[in-house]
Each structure stands twice: as C-alpha cells, then as structure tokens.
C-alpha cells in the first residue's frame, strides 16, 4: 500500500462507524421494542445520556471542567415548558427553539467561562448555574418559582403521535432525538473542527502556532454542547410534562459529571454508558434507601478517584476500543 493510501485509510478509519456501535444502537432500538415495562427508566437514561454526551464535548474534548452544566439543561427545560404557555405546543418545534436558545446562552456565557484557570472556570460555571437557579426561583410569575411550571400540555408529536401514559411515544421520541444528535456530535468530533477542538484543549500554545484560533474553537464547541444540554432539558420537560427548579440544581451538574466519569471521557459513548449504569444503579439503590442515595453517589466518587479513575476505566475503554477497531 502506498503511504498516501495508508494515510487516507488511517484518517478514514478514525471516523468510520464500528460494528460495536451498530450493536449498541440496535440494542437501544430493541429496548424500545421489547422493554415496555421500563419505558420511564429508559427515557430518563436517554435524556441523561444526551446531557452527558454534551458534557463530554465540553470536558472530554474541550478540556473545560464545568460544575454548572445544569444551567443549560434547566434553561432548555424552562424554554420548552414556557413555549407551550406561549402557544407553541408541538414538541419538535419546541425542542428546536429550546436548542437554539440554549446554544445562544452557551455562546453568551462562554465568554465568561473561557477565561482563566480550572478554578476560575469551575467557579464561573457554578455561578452561572446558581444565578439561573436564583432567577428561576425569584421570577415566580413566569416560572412558578418553587412550585414549578404547572399545566404544561403538548399537542401530539408532529400532530400524529399522542404522548401515552406508558411512555412508549415519549421514549421513542427521546431515543430518536438522542440518536440524531449523537450522530451529529460524532460527526463533529471527527471533522477538522473537532480535531482542532481536541488540539486546542491539549495544547493551546501550539494550536495557535499552527494558525487555529483557540478561543473561538472552544466557544464553538461550548455553544454546541450547551445546545445539546438544552435539548436534553427540553426532552425532560416535554416527556414529564413538568418543570421545577430541580432541573437547575447543583446536584444535577454533579451527577452528570459522575455519569460521564463513570463511562469515561473523550469518546462520546462514555456519556451514554455512564448514564445507563448510573440510572440503573440509582433505580436499584433508591428502592433500598430512597433518601440517602446521595451518600452512595458520594462514596462512589471518592472511591473512583482514590482507586484512580484513569486506571479503573482503562480496561473497559480499551475493551470498547478493541471491539471498535475491529473493522
């Protein structure tokens, strides 16, 4: 094989869909067909998965440690909820508007986030989410304050599918949206733009020295990721027909971080796998100790770090990559 052909094949291989990926999504589709009893949990997993994929773009690719990603999730949820009150009751339209609005919020706040050190970023992301929470809490006339948004109702999806009480349409809808946006994100990270984001977080000095504007790349990926988180929030609002302050709460930011870390950062599937594991374990543990579930999250975090996150997840990730590599 000529060097040219080798190079072309190598670059192509990095972006090709692997059998393991087809299997993953086939399993997801099968869950919708064959697990009707689990729709509520599955829907939560799909939404949390999208949220975690969004954080992976920010943290795993952009290298930005965020403690306030719930800001975008919550914002999207409120936008979707409020839209129905403004008369936009078709879910997909609402989803689109929520996504665009949250992208704009992400772009606007990226100016704050992309300055300074890790510590500054942690504090600014945290503060942005707290400010939003505070606003939602105070603007009772708009958001319902601590009572949440009451009386959200949606028209049937695309005018065809009515949300049923078993969550069949809801989960199918969430899963389809997750798949489309995941494919988009996956496409993005193997594009020149995606590689430049990876380069910019890995070595900003050199990235600028090959002519790539570091800040603008990170702003771009932050905005896109914010949009995904906003859509995730909107999905929650639409499929649960309820929005409360909880969507903006700190624990949501911390949990999504934990999900992503469980699944591993920097390869997109980590967010999905992490969300799946987290939600299933949460579901089981919550039956045992509903109130003190937080303790176990905390313990898990501490043990994860002490045992060495990298070391612990090197194995599953290597396994996944091995399957992934086999063409």
């Amino acid at each position: 094989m000529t060097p040219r052909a080798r190079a072309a094949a190598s670059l192509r291989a990095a972006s090709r869909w692997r059998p393991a990926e087809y299997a993953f999504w086939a399993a997801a589709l099968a869950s919708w067909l064959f697990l009707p009893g689990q729709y509520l949990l599955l829907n939560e997993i799909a939404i949390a998965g999208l949220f975690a994929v969004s954080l992976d773009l920010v943290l795993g690719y952009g290298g930005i440690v965020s403690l306030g990603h719930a800001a975008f999730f919550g914002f999207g949820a409120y936008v979707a909820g409020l839209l129905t009150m403004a008369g936009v009751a078709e879910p997909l339209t609402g989803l689109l508007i929520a996504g665009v609005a949250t992208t704009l919020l992400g772009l606007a706040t990226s100016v704050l986030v992309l300055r300074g050190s890790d510590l500054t970023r942690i504090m600014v992301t945290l503060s942005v989410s707290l400010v939003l929470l505070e606003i939602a809490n105070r603007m009772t006339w708009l958001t319902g304050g601590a009572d949440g948004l009451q009386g959200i109702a949606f028209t049937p999806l695309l005018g065809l599918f009515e949300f049923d009480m078993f969550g069949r349409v809801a989960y199918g809808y969430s899963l389809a949206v997750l798949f489309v946006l995941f494919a988009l994100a996956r496409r993005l990270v193997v594009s020149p733009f995606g590689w430049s984001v990876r380069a910019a977080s890995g070595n900003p000095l050199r990235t600028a020295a090959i002519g790539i504007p570091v800040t603008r790349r990170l702003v771009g990926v932050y905005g896109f990721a914010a949009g995904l988180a906003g859509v995730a929030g909107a999905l929650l609002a639409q499929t649960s027909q309820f929005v409360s302050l909880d969507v903006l709460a700190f624990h949501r930011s911390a949990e999504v971080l934990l999900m992503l870390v469980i699944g591993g950062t920097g390869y997109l599937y980590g967010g999905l796998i992490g969300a799946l594991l987290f939600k299933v374990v949460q579901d089981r543990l919550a039956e045992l100790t509903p109130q003190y579930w937080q303790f176990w999250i905390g313990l898990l975090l501490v043990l994860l770090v002490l045992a060495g996150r990298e070391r612990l997840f090197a194995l599953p990730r290597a396994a996944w990559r091995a399957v992934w590599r086999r063409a």
Partner: protein
Amino acid sequence: MTPALETIGLHRSFGGLAAASDVSLRLERGARHALIGPNGAGKTTLLNLLSGVLAPSAGRILLDGADITTLAPDRRVRRGLVRTFQVNQLFPALTPLQSVGLAVSRRLGLDTQVWRRIGSRPAVIDQSVEVLARFGLLDVMDRPTRGLAYGKQRLLEIALAIACGPRVLLLDEPAAGVPEGERDEILAGVAALPDDVTVLLIEHDMDLVFRFARRISVLVAGRILTEGTPAEIAADPRVRAVYLGDGHA
C-alpha cells in the same frame, strides 16, 4: 525591496529587567539568518515577541511591510509567519498524521468544517504525506505522538511548522536535545524549503549556525551587539569575548 520580516525598536521588559531592548532586525525575502547569543540573552523572548506569544512594550513588527505588532498569534500564522518551539509543543494524544493533517487543513482553509471528516479532501492527504515523508515520519504516522522517540517528536515539531506553509519560518533551537547523528535529518528538512522562504534560526550550536546561515545577528543582554556574515562574526573580537566570557564555545 520590502523586507520579509522587520522589527523596529522592539522592546520588552519583565519587571525592571529588559529582555529585549531596541531590537531592530531586517530579514530579506529568502534570507537564511541566524540569531545567536549566550544563555539569557533574550533570544526566546524575541521569538515570543515575533510570534505574538508576548506583546512588546514598545516597537513595531512588520511582515512584508504590514504592521503585525498587535496581531494575535494565530493571525500571524495565517499570514505566513510560523514558528517552532525550543521545547516540543505537540499534541500528545494525536498521531503525527492527525497533527500534520490538522495543520494542512488549516492552511487550506478547511479547519472550520464541521460536517466533512478530516482528510476527506485528497489535497490534505497529499500534502500531509509529503511533509511527513520529508521528515521521515511516515513509518510512525499512525502512532500517538506521546509514544514516539524524542528524535521523532523533534522532527514532528519542525514538520508541523512546515505543514503550515510558512513564508517566514522562525526556528527556536531546532536541534536542541537531538544527538549529533540525527541533526542532519532536521537540517535536510529545513534546507528543502523553497528559496523564497525566509528563515530565522535561533541556535546555540555554532557548528550548525555556520553551516546554515548566510547572515548572523548577535544578541547580548537583550540588545543586538552586531550583525554580519558568518566570516565577519567569527572574526569579531567582541563576539569572542561574549562567548568566551560566558563559558560557551
């Protein structure tokens, strides 16, 4: 003729210490210019000023006659002013092919593409392979950079700059840490540049400087002490004094 790169009274101090003071340099198109000087003379500071990593406190930088003094580093690269680093600045998680492919994509204006995958244009592959081949990196182009031998990483450091298509190339001690036998590989890659590319070489190794440069400037304590042909510099007693006094050969 407009010089390819010119500095006028460039000045930069840290605290009270002037790391560059009143530096005026003039590089004609196609120049092979070396900047030498003892440790701490301000060579790297000057390079950081030229590439935009540092902002000067006074003075101007002209690229092809256009003032670029306040331009961001990445904008300078887009105008053809490219640098390498004394200490390798690479992308450890990327392979050489991906790194060089990214630089080539940028040069071809494809770096904002979000929909096509990297290397979907044949031109990117062609040019990346050409640069990798020139620096003997083809056999390792698929391995993550962090696992490469130091010599290969050093070659990649230079290759990345070449991939940007420089019109003015600033080399910061390209042979630093490279054993004698492998230096030729680096030099050969640089020598293969077209004649109209202007090169400023910062180097410690006098042997390399005298082999490469057609003109030499000597920087001492942030100031240009003198400038001349290699023969003139070699004969200059002041230069000898600086180097012998400082303990360097």
